[in-house]
């Protein structure tokens, strides 16, 4: 499997606080990699750095062999990196169809794309996440689960190669959570995307991820198959504290 993303020694400081410290890892094409760690471990900061929302203080981010450390987020998106947010951030004043349409228009470069073409494509992604019947509903009027579905549709419509799924289970009930997991698995099968899955819920990563990376206080403390990581004493200590 070819390497799709390579993060080398990235660090990020906010004033005196070190949010991410010298983290390196790589993701292969077609993989599902879990990123976990207690609250404030620096998971979202790391994703923000890879997506371009935050600048990198030191280190290097490579995507498909190309150095993207200095690229703005929209250029990274066009290359094939997209994400969903921990707290859903839909476009509240746009209908779900229009929201996905923005991605279909401006995500990966597709020449001679008209608004109508994008609308048609957007309906396809809405149908995939089960929101087709709500295509004309304003995004602010959706439920939390639907918002997460919309975010996934919006991210998929950019035709990404690598997608970051940020705590998709937060705030969902068990039935919805199960649906969400299945949806991401389907997305992986159908669109062939590589997934970096940020999650607190161990059980989900155990089931879905082939490899798990654990962050604690901004540093990578473990990496490997889920079962191995779950039994790692350092991981247990980071979650439960020292006995």
């Amino acid at each position, binding site marked *: 499997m070819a390497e799709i993303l390579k993060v080398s020694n990235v660090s990020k400081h906010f004033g005196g606080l070190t949010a991410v410290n010298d983290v390196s890892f790589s993701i292969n094409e077609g993989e599902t990699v879990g990123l976990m760690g207690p609250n404030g471990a620096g998971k979202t900061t790391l994703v923000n750095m890879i*997506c*371009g*929302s935050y600048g990198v203080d030191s280190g290097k981010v490579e995507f498909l062999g190309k150095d993207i450390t200095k690229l*703005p*987020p*929209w250029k990274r*998106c*066009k290359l094939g990196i*997209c*994400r969903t*947010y921990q707290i859903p*951030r839909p*476009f*509240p*004043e*746009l*209908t779900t*169809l*229009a*929201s996905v*349409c*923005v*991605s279909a*228009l*401006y*995500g*990966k470069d597709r020449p001679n*794309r*008209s*608004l109508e073409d*994008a609308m048609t494509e957007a309906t396809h992604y809405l149908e995939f996440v089960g929101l087709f019947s709500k295509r*004309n509903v*304003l995004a602010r009027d959706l439920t939390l689960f639907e918002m997460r579905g919309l975010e996934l549709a*919006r*991210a998929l*419509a*950019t035709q990404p190669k690598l997608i970051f799924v940020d705590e998709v289970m937060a705030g969902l009930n068990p039935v919805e959570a199960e649906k969400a997991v299945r949806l991401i698995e389907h997305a992986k099968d159908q669109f062939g995307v590589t997934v970096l899955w940020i999650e607190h819920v161990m059980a989900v990563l155990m089931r879905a991820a082939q490899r798990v990376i654990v962050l604690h206080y901004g540093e990578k403390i473990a990496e490997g198959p889920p079962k191995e990581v779950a039994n790692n004493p350092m991981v247990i200590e980071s979650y439960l504290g020292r006995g």
Partner: protein
Amino acid sequence: MEFEVKRERLVLRAGGGKWEWHIEPRYWRNPLIFVGILIAAPVIVYFWYPPLLATVIEANLLAAIAIPLALMTIGTGRMNFGPQFYIGIGGYAAALLSIHAHLSPGLTMIAAALGGLVFGFLMSPLSIIAGGLYYSLLTLLFPLLFLEVTYIFTDLFKGDTGLSGLAPLVSTGSFSLNLLIYAFISLTIMLVYLFIMDKIFRSRYAIQMAAINDDEEVANSIGVNVNKVKIISFTIAATLVAVVGWFYAHYYQAFSGQVFLPLSFMLKIFMVTMLGGRTQIYGCVIGGYFIAFLEMILIRTMGDMSPVLFPIILLVLLLALPEGLFGLYRKRHYREYMPTLRFRR
């Protein structure tokens, strides 16, 4: 030729052709009807009471400022409180070149537009650097700074009195006829702006502006080049507003920063946009006419009190109609994606 009135439509048969007009209320949203009314209005006023044409011209110009301002607001996701800065740029460019270089109005228009383009482009990074209150304050300051500059360089800008003696756009010899022609020129400017904005807002470019309005960071992360959109929409709007400044200068044959650059003029533009709905281009037309006529009535009935009443009316509008008149309509028609372009900061 045969003309027939049916229950729900009018039918005209001429030669081999047949034309039908539906007269059901649901077809009344045809914009051609409103354009027809706007074109007929100056002619009616001309025959009824010609001095009122000045108010019609003012209404058209207020709308012509508010329409590009809607583009600027939507494209940058921020409210610019100093659109009159570009009126000043356009007006002074036209006045200086007309008086000193004796350029024709056609050439001064190009110069005014270029002035707006250059200054708009130079100012546009503000929408990237500053946000929220800082952006509003900075944009509010620029016209006032410009006014100060006109006082400092009195030799050039003629300070309080302003520049006078510009070449008129039309001179037929009849005051009323001149006004009528000016009314049609101002209407043309306004309708052209309306047409351009309508085309932009229905295109694929508007949808990225809508996304920027709602969440800049997310829009950026799904491939929208936010900075480019902001700079382009800011610059286009500034250019269009500068052309209105050019018209003001040639219409009055004089231009003084004292009239256009202070906050009182900004307040009027702000009221037009508030009444119509902050980013609703059709609302701007209604707002422009309402405010121009309201101002005329207030000046005639209240005299000196009118500047005090304006802010009070604005306050009432802000409370009673936060989304403006068009907002009421749009609330029921949110399925059209265009309406959902709404300023939210």
